[in-house]
């Protein structure tokens, strides 16, 4: 089984700031980590490989420094790492990102299974997984908390819901986005780290993936960020004190006054 895991390098959530001028995330001087949900996607991919055979390729679209995140993924069990990196990709929204990722996966021969974290902790859109599935013309199952079975060209999973779970089966190839309940990601092993040090990074440019330049980066992104702001605290707050009866009476009086 050929498994792709899409990973994103994100600023450590402990240390997030907005650049007030550009309304984008200030990344300078902030430690970068692998998006935590992607660690769970990677772990699940490695476990599926260990159980069913195949290969795990980690793919990221990002600046050259995202290589560190890909090497970390190799140290945790991925076999191959691919970085789609090109100035033309810069400023991409989720629409342009899914286009780029889909072209990269096609260029690399396609996938039997694609795993993504449910969302990235910086943008929080949760759109790249489903968008990529659409671009790849694959079924998409989101919020996967357990892979129940992979057999006969199909995958059966539990999808986490507020009031329980859905049992869903899809034909392969398919794309899953996973929640953190799915597993506990492993810590990189010593042999994994040594492999990661030597592993060849595959770099893909816009030309390599034969992309339409109009669909890339800022140019290919219909999203416009008009303003980013912290919501103001509104409304008055009042504490009602006294015995329970007194509090109920006081609350009722206030409600009556409003009505």
């Amino acid at each position: 089984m050929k498994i792709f895991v899409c990973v994103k390098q994100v600023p450590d959530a402990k240390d997030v700031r907005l650049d007030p001028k550009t309304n984008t995330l200030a990344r300078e001087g902030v430690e970068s980590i692998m998006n935590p949900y992607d660690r769970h996607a990677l772990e699940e991919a490695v476990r599926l490989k260990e159980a069913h055979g195949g290969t795990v390729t980690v793919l990221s679209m990002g600046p050259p420094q995202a290589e560190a995140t890909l090497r970390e993924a190799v140290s945790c069990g991925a076999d191959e790492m691919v970085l789609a990196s090109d100035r033309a990709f810069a400023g991409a929204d989720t629409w342009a990102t899914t286009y780029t990722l889909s072209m990269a996966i096609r260029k690399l021969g396609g996938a039997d299974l694609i795993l993504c974290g449910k969302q990235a902790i910086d943008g929080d859109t949760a759109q790249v997984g489903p968008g990529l599935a659409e671009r790849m013309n694959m079924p998409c199952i989101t919020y996967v908390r357990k892979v129940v079975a992979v057999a006969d060209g199909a995958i059966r999973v539990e999808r986490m819901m507020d009031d329980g779970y859905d049992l869903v089966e899809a034909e392969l190839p398919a794309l899953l986005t996973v929640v953190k309940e799915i597993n506990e990601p492993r810590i990189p092993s010593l042999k994994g780290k040594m492999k990661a040090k030597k592993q060849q990074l595959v770099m893909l440019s816009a030309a390599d993936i034969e992309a339409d330049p109009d669909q890339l980066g800022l140019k290919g992104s219909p999203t416009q960020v008009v303003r980013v702001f912290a919501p103001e605290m509104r409304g008055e707050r009042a504490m009602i004190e006294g015995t329970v009866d007194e509090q109920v009476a006081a609350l009722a009086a206030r409600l009556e006054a409003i009505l």
Partner: protein
Amino acid sequence: MDYFLSEEQQMIVDVARQITEERIIPQRAELDEKEEFPVDILKAIAQADLFGLYIPEEYGGFGGGSFDIVLALEEFGRGCVGIATAFAANALGAYPILISGSEELKQKYLPDIASGAKYAAFALTEANAGSDASGIQTTAVLDGDHWVLNGSKQWITNGGEANIYTVIAITDRAKGPRGATMFVVEDTDPGFSYGAKEKKLGIRASSTRELVFKDCRIPKDRVIGRVGTGFITVMRTLDLSRPGIASLGVGLGQAALDEAVRYAKQRVQFGKPIISFQAVQHMLADMAIQVEASRALVYATARNLDVNKSGVSKISSMCKVMATDMAMKVTTDAVQILAGYGYMREYPVEKMMRDAKILQIYEGTNQIQRNVIGQELNKEYINK
């Protein structure tokens, strides 16, 4: 301080540190409280390839040496000496096979120890044989193709959890020190059982139990080395293992220092953080000096052990004494600096102080270490 670690050594530190931060520290208080063996954490350590650090590559290990295991143990010791002891006891149990075992024994047991599939333990101490190993009562008698063991071993770390035990027993009492032999006993061998799990002051996540041998029959080829060489194997094993215990002391001392400095910066009395008072500053300074000096000696000793295979008893004992006496002192001072809070179980330093005590006792008491150092000095100066 920069100890100029190689890239590989830094990787060992990084892997061990991540396990310590993500798995050991969040769970240590609960495992201590419940006196629970750290099964999941040992699995994570195994998955990270650290069980095989000191085992040669031909037996499935990483092919490292004393310094490599010292680096890992220091990190684990920083997290929890109890959990670190449960891990380190595997090395202590494996060393006799590694040092004196036949090729067949090495191939049979080391790969499973290297992968963490099986746990190992070392069994020397008895009710009447601690510092004085000549008091050993456990016997082994040859009966056809089997050795038959009778007796019991006391306070065995990983007892009941390990699958592979390296055990010393008397095979010919008339021969004195040359009448003891080491054997491999497996947990499934007939006539082998465990006593009750001990309740301890500290390192409560580790398991300590009695081993009972009652007509325990093991195949003849389980002898480690030659018959009669048991004491030599034990001494060489302890020479190798003591820097590991010392490194637990370094890690523990560092952890206590970290907690004490952090607290002293936050705690305000008389309108100032207590770190601004010289009484506290001097305590912290002394703690830092002792931690760093111990680390330097342990690293230097471990590097020596990786090159020199004999004549290492003195330095091995020296680093064990220095780092573990330091750990006791530094953890006690950390509790003093945190004072009332330090004495409470909500803060980690009381556990650190409880855990420190065993380091001065096990793997040879610090008094016995000083005997070793003194005897070596006596020998060294014979012709000077």
